[in-house]
Each structure stands twice: as structure tokens, then as C-alpha cells.
């Protein structure tokens, strides 16, 4: 038994970014009460996020654990925290005008976003399974509400309830898994589990508990990252939720779930030799099913939902590789995927501010005539999703698959590359429809507010800029693997 009182080192500098977000969220609740102050909410949220981002960047290089080892601050956690905050900032920039046009412009939206981000940070910056579970819930509960945020829309209702039921179902599996791991290891702290891992694994009863716990935890997170047998909720929730929320769903919670999976499996349970096979099988299933189902979609939002499933499959290749190479490839991929996927959903958000727009492919005809820049940016994101050079999507896949080849996973690499070829069809269909198709209906113009332009410019510059100069991000993601778990 560890003496908790003596190790209860309270060091608030580890959690400054989280504290900033919580203060912002509670201030915002106050602001939301006053009708006069409510229009300030988006700017206040942005300010909070920028302050938090500054505090996160200040933390870079910090290595430490505190609060009875419940909080771990290493470069891995800091990197992911920065990803969450950047994704939130872009989402808020995109959301303002969309929410106004749909008549759901309420300050609660920003409060929920802030609290959800705190949850993501908590689950990433810890090595304790229970704190991961609580962080996951703090992240998920606001997201369920955000999915159903458009109360009057039946589709949004449906998305919220489906997401809630699936999420609660998954967290029950996760909790049972954690309970079994606790029974095997007598602790929920990953750092202590790692030290006794091989002893526990080869002990008869605790070995069984440990393995069943690991399987259940994987099922729980499989729902969150939408790995293939557990993906059925994704297209419906992504289609029904308000589009900026979908943009947020497709990147931030997924990145958080992957961060936890990397911490638990690549570092905590690295002693399990079957992990490579298991993750390879799930990676192949996830990317193939995602890509094949995306082929037959007629709705851009649903297509992007299936594409996000297949991208989860690519990231699982990195989990199969494991080790420092796998982790840094996964971080690089997640960081770049965050940028271009947010951008792609951003363009869809902009187009949906027109009344009656359902985001079918056919509604894109004439986009290049009406908005040449928007069409070009959309095409850029599609090329990045498909993995064309010189966008960052190419380098993400390149590092991922070269890590897989170095780990002797040749067949996995071949299947992955074939999958990216298949995906070219449906990504380029967007480009074809928006540039080359013609129809009698004229394309009704959309209004591009400064916030939207800023968000799209940020993501586009990141997609192209990091694609041309990938070394900075690569070095960051290589530095981000130390100090684990």
C-alpha cells in the first residue's frame, strides 16, 4: 500500500489550463443569465480558450505528477491538450453564424464546449484509470447535450438520444473493465500496473482478470473511437447533430479516446504480446468497412462520417505498431487529421447556413462558380483526406505506414494503402461535383463572416503549410512520447 497522505503532492501548476477553462465556464454561466451580456458569450469563450492555450504552451517541457499521482503532466498530455483547445477554437469560430441561422444561438453552447474540453484534458493528463473514466464522463455528458442541441429538430433529438444511449452503454463496459483490472492489480494506477505487469499476467487468477479487463476497456473505447463492430451510431449522430458540433465530435473526443488508448495499451499493457494482432485486425476492419460504406453515400455529411471511421482505422495501424514510433506516428496523424477534418466539416457548415440545405452531393453543383475560393479550399481538404501530397494528409499516412513497415507489418501496410486508393473515389467525387457538374438551379450564395473565413484560413494554412514543412510537427510528435505513462 502506498501511503497516500505523504504522496499527495498538490501542485496546481500541473492543471493551470484546466483551471482557466473551468473559471471561464463558470463565468459564462453567469453571463448566460443576463440577457444584456449573453451576446458576449462567444468572445468570452474564445478568450478563455486562448488563455488556456497560452498556459498549455507554457507547460511544454514540464514533467510531473501530482494529486496522489492522479494527474500526470508530460509532453504527451500537453500535445493532446493543445490539439483539443485548437479544435475547440476552430469549432467556436465556425459555430457562431451557424447557430444564429438555425435560431439556437444560446450561451449554453459555449459552456458545454468548455466543460467538455476540461473532461478531455483530465482524461489525457492522468495515469489513473478511474480519473480517465471520470474525465471521459465529464467530456461525454456535455457532448450528448450538444448533439441534441437543436431541440426543435427531430433529427437532432434522435442524434442526441442515440449518442447518449451508445455512450452510456460503452461506459458501462469500460467501468466493468476497470473493475476487473482493479481486482487483478489491486490498483488503478497504470504506473504501478506496469511495474508488476508480467507477474500479474502469469499469475493464474489475476491473469484472467487482467485480460478480461483489457478486453472490456477496449470495447468501451472502441465505441468512442468508432472502431468497426462498434461504429453503427456514428453516421446517424454525425448527420443529425448540428454541423459545427459534428465537426467537433469527429476530432476532439476521438483524439481524447485515442490518447487514452495509447496510454493504456501501448504503455500500460505493452506486455501483452497479442496486442499487435488484435489491433491489426481491428484496423483492417475499421478502415475497410468505413471506406466501402462511404462509397455509397449521397450525403456529404454521412460520407464524412464514414470517412472519419476509416481514419480511425488508419490511426489504429499506429496502435498495432506500438512503441515510440507508433505513438509519434499516431500523434502526427491525429494532429493533422484534426486540421483537415475540421476544415472539411467547416465548409459543410458554411454551406448549411443556407436555408433548407441537407448537404447532398447534388447541392454542391455550381459551388466553384459562386464561391471559387471556398470551392478551392474544400478541394484542398478533400485532397488532404485522400492523402495527396503536398498536403499534410500525405505525410500523416506516410509516417504511419513507414512505421508499420519498420515493424514488419507489410500486409497491414498493403491493405492500408489499398484503402486509401479506394477512398480517393468518394473524396474526389466532391471535387468533381463542385467544379465540373452543371445544373439549371443557380447556386444560392452563402454569407462568409470574418470568423468563418478565419477558421477556414487557419485550417487550410495548417493543412498546406505543415504539408510543405512537416518537420516541425514531426519533431514535436517525436518529443511528445517521453515521460509515459
Amino acid at each position, binding site marked *: 500500500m502506498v501511503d497516500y497522505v505523504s504522496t499527495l503532492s498538490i501542485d496546481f501548476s500541473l492543471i493551470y489550463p484546466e483551471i482557466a477553462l473551468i473559471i471561464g465556464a463558470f463565468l459564462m454561466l453567469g453571463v448566460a443569465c443576463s440577457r444584456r451580456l449573453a451576446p458576449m458569450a462567444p468572445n468570452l469563450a474564445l478568450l478563455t480558450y486562448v488563455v488556456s492555450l497560452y498556459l498549455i504552451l507554457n507547460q511544454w517541457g514540464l514533467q510531473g505528477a501530482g494529486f496522489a499521482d492522479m494527474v500526470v503532466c508530460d509532453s504527451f498530455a500537453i500535445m493532446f491538450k493543445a490539439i483539443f483547445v485548437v479544435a475547440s477554437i476552430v469549432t467556436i469560430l465556425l459555430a457562431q453564424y451557424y447557430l444564429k441561422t438555425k435560431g439556437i444561438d444560446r450561451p449554453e453552447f459555449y459552456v458545454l464546449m468548455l466543460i467538455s474540453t476540461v473532461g478531455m484534458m483530465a482524461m489525457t493528463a492522468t495515469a489513473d484509470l478511474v480519473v480517465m473514466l471520470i474525465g471521459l464522463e465529464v467530456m461525454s*455528458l456535455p457532448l450528448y447535450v450538444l448533439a441534441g442541441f437543436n431541440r426543435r429538430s427531430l433529427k437532432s*433529438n434522435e442524434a442526441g*438520444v442515440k449518442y447518449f444511449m451508445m455512450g452510456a452503454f460503452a461506459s458501462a463496459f469500460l467501468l466493468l473493465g476497470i473493475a476487473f483490472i482493479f481486482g487483478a492489480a489491486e490498483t488503478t494506477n497504470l504506473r504501478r500496473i506496469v511495474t508488476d505487469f508480467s507477474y500479474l499476467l502469469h499469475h493464474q487468477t489475476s491473469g484472467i482478470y487482467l485480460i478480461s479487463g483489457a478486453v472490456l476497456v477496449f470495447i468501451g473505447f472502441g465505441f468512442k473511437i468508432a472502431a468497426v463492430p462498434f461504429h453503427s451510431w456514428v453516421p446517424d449522430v454525425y448527420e443529425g447533430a448540428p454541423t459545427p458540433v459534428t465537426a467537433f465530435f469527429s476530432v476532439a473526443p476521438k483524439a481524447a479516446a485515442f490518447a487514452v488508448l495509447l496510454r493504456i495499451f501501448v504503455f500500460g499493457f505493452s506486455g501483452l504480446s497479442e496486442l499487435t494482432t488484435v489491433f491489426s485486425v481491428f484496423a483492417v476492419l475499421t478502415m475497410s468497412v468505413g471506406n466501402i460504406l462511404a462509397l455509397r453515400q449521397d450525403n456529404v455529411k454521412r460520407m464524412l462520417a464514414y470517412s472519419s471511421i476509416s481514419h480511425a482505422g488508419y490511426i489504429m495501424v499506429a496502435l498495432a505498431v506500438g512503441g515510440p514510433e507508433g505513438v509519434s506516428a499516431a500523434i502526427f496523424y491525429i494532429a493533422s487529421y484534426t486540421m483537415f477534418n475540421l476544415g472539411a466539416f467547416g465548409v459543410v457548415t458554411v454551406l448549411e447556413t443556407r436555408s433548407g440545405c441537407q448537404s447532398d452531393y447534388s447541392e454542391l453543383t455550381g459551388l466553384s462558380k459562386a464561391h471559387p475560393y471556398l470551392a478551392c479550399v474544400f478541394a484542398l481538404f478533400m485532397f488532404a483526406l485522400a492523402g495527396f501530397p503536398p498536403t499534410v494528409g500525405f505525410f500523416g499516412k506516410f509516417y504511419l505506414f513507414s512505421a508499420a513497415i519498420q515493424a514488419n507489418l507489410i500486409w497491414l501496410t498493403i491493405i492500408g494503402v489499398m484503402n486509401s486508393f479506394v477512398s480517393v473515389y468518394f473524396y474526389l467525387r466532391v471535387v468533381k461535383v463542385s467544379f465540373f457538374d452543371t445544373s439549371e438551379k443557380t447556386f444560392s450564395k452563402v454569407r462568409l463572416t470574418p470568423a468563418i473565413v478565419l477558421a477556414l484560413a487557419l485550417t487550410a494554412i495548417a493543412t498546406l503549410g505543415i504539408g510543405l514543412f512537416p518537420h516541425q510537427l514531426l519533431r514535436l510528435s517525436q518529443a511528445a512520447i517521453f515521460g509515459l505513462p
Partner: protein
Amino acid sequence: MVPTSAYLILAIILFGIGTVGVLITRNMIVLFMSIEIMLNAANMVLIAFSKALNLVDGHVIVFLVLTIAAAEAAVGLAMIVMVYRNRETVNVDRFSLMKW
């Protein structure tokens, strides 16, 4: 003295009942209750291990989980009410605006 395995078997049976309930029921309230049964089965595993290993950690985790379940109930029931207001039904079969 009841052996730990008895508690575990009971908990796994409860978890199974919950899982089957989630998969076959059509009423959202019952579906939600099934999820609560699953969470409580997990709590039971925690308590059983806590008692067997003579540790207090498991008990504390159970309290945290109870809080989580309460928060989930608040959000979930609010959503069910929202759906009922818009559709006058809580049957998940009617949830087919978008294909599954």
C-alpha cells in the same frame, strides 16, 4: 463466508441481463434502466474485489461511479423528456429518420 467468485458470477449475470436488455428493448426508459443495471453490476465487482483484497479503494470508486450514474440519469432523462415532447413516444423503433 461467501467466496469472491460468487459475487463475481452474480455481477456478470447482472451485467448480462443489462446488456441483453439494451439490445432487445424498444422503450427508452427501460433501455436506460438496463444501462443502470450494467453500471451497478460493475459496482458490485468493485466491491467484491475491495472486500477480497481488503482495500478501501474499491469502495471509494463506487461512490464516484454513483455520482457519474446520477449525472448520466439527469442528462438522459432530460433527453427522453425532450424526445417525448416532440414525438409523443419513447419507442426507439420510431427513430428511423436516418437509417441506422
